[in-house]
C-alpha cells in the first residue's frame, strides 16, 4: 500500500514550520509518523503537504524548570522510557511509556504526536489528564498554553487550530508524598488498550488524599477525566473501601462501546478493577514504597 502523492518540506526552525503549515490548507505535521504514515497508507488521510518536524531544532528535551517537567513535543517515547529523571520521579509517566505500542515504534513515536493525534486509544492523554498537565502550542499569532482538560474535544479532535504546532507538554513537578501508576490491559504488545487507567495522587501530612487525578484510556471518544471519583477521594484516607467506591465512580464515568476488544460490560469492569489497583500502587509509591 503506497500513500497518495504529497509535497514534503523539512524546515529547520519552528517559525518556518508554522509558515509552511499556514501556507497550505491541507497540510499535516509529520512527527514520529507512527500513526500518520499507516493512515496515509490506508488512504484514510491524504494530506497535500507534509511538514516534517524531525529537523526542527529545540523540540526534543526533558527538563524540570520553573516548577514544571517540560517535555519537548518531538521527544521520542524511547527517550522518555530511558530517562532516569522520569524513572525516579514520574512513575505514572514511566509506567505509561513502557506500554505504548512496541519498542520499535517507541524509537520514532513522539510524546507530542501521541497527544496531538487525540486518539482515545493513545496512552498519554489519560496520563496527562491525571497529572493536570498543560500543552504549549505555537501558531502564526504566537504561543499559547492550553490546559489539558480543555485539549481533547472529540475523536481525533484537539483544541489545536489547523495552523498551530504543539511544541511542549508540561507536567507539574510532583510535591512530596506524591505517586502515580498506569495500568493497561492490552490483547498483545502493540495493540491499543482494551482499557487503561492513569492515577496520580498526593497525600497530605495526615496521610489523606490531598489531590487525586484519574484518567481513563480508550473507553470513550476522548480520554476521560474521572472527576466524580477524584472529588470523592479528596480529603479521605486511602482505604480499600474508598478505592472500591472511587473505582465504581470511575467505571460509571467510562463510556465504552463493544468492539473486537470486548463488551461494554467487560470494559467497564476492567476500569473498575484497574482503578483499584492503580490507586493502590499510586498510594504505595506516594508513601515511598
Amino acid at each position, binding site marked *: 500500500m503506497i500513500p497518495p*502523492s504529497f509535497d*514534503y518540506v523539512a524546515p529547520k526552525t519552528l517559525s518556518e514550520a508554522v509558515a509552511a503549515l499556514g501556507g497550505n490548507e491541507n497540510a499535516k505535521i509529520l512527527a514520529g509518523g507512527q500513526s500518520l504514515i499507516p493512515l496515509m497508507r490506508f488512504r484514510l488521510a491524504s494530506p497535500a503537504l507534509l511538514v516534517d518536524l524531525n529537523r526542527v531544532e529545540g523540540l526534543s528535551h526533558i527538563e524540570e524548570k520553573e516548577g514544571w517537567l517540560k517535555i519537548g513535543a518531538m521527544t521520542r517515547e524511547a527517550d522518555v522510557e530511558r530517562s532516569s529523571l522520569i524513572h525516579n520521579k514520574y512513575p505514572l509517566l514511566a509506567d505509561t511509556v513502557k506500554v505504548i505500542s512496541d519498542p520499535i*515504534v517507541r*524509537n*520514532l513515536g513522539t510524546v507530542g504526536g501521541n497527544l496531538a493525534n487525540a486518539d482515545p486509544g493513545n496512552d498519554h492523554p489519560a496520563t496527562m489528564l491525571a497529572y493536570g498537565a498543560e500543552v504549549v502550542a505555537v501558531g502564526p499569532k504566537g504561543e499559547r498554553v492550553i490546559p489539558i482538560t480543555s485539549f481533547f474535544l472529540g475523536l481525533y479532535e484537539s483544541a489545536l487550530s489547523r495552523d498551530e504546532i504543539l511544541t511542549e507538554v508540561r507536567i507539574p513537578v510532583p510535591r512530596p508524598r506524591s505517586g502515580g501508576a498506569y495500568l493497561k490491559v492490552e490483547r498483545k504488545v502493540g495493540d491499543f488498550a482494551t482499557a487503561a487507567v492513569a492515577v496520580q495522587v498526593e497525600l497530605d501530612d495526615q496521610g489523606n488524599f490531598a489531590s487525586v487525578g484519574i484518567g481513563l484510556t480508550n473507553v470513550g471518544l476522548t480520554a476521560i477525566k474521572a472527576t466524580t471519583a477524584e472529588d470523592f477521594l479528596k480529603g479521605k484516607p486511602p482505604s480499600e473501601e474508598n478505592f472500591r467506591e472511587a473505582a465504581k465512580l470511575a467505571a460509571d464515568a467510562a463510556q465504552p462501546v463493544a468492539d473486537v476488544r470486548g463488551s461494554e460490560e467487560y470494559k467497564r469492569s476492567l476500569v473498575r478493577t484497574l482503578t483499584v489497583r492503580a490507586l493502590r500502587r499510586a498510594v504505595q509509591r506516594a508513601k515511598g514504597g
Partner: protein
Amino acid sequence: MSRHNIQVTINGKPYQAEVEARLLLVHFLRENLNLTGTHIGCDTTSCGACTVLFNGKAVKSCTVFAVQADGAEIRTVEGLATNGKLHPIQEGFHEMHGLQCGYCTPGMMMSALALLEQNPHPTEDEIRHGISGNLCRCTGYVNIVKAIQYAAEKMANVKKEVAD
C-alpha cells in the same frame, strides 16, 4: 507531488537518489537498491519484519519515508556478515534454530542487534521485551531467545579477546 534528492549511507556505503516524497524506506531499499533482505510482512506497522537500524535505532522501514532518511546511516540485514563470515547474531539463529520459515528473521536480527548494542548482557526478560515489536508465527520465540543469548555471549567473548 514532490521529488527530493537524498544522500543515505547504507551498510557503510553512500548512496544518492532522487525519490518521490511518498516512497517508503522499505521500498527504496528493496526496489531502488535491490536490498531485498529487508522483508515486507504486514505492511501495517505491526509485525517488524521490515526492521532496519536508522542512526543506530531499530525502526520499521515501512513506516518511514525514504526522504526522511536524507543524511542518515541505515543498517540492514545485508550489513551483518563481514567478509563472508556470519555475524554472531546470524550464527546464533543458525546454531540455535532461531527460525523456521525465515520471514521474520531479518527484522528479528536487526532488533536483536539494536538491543545488544544498547544492552550487551540482557536478561531473558529484557530480550523478550526487546523483540516484542517483532512477530514470529513459527517458532514460539523460544529458540529466538536462545539465539540472542548465544549472540550476546559470543559478542562479549569477541570483545574480551580484542581487549586482551
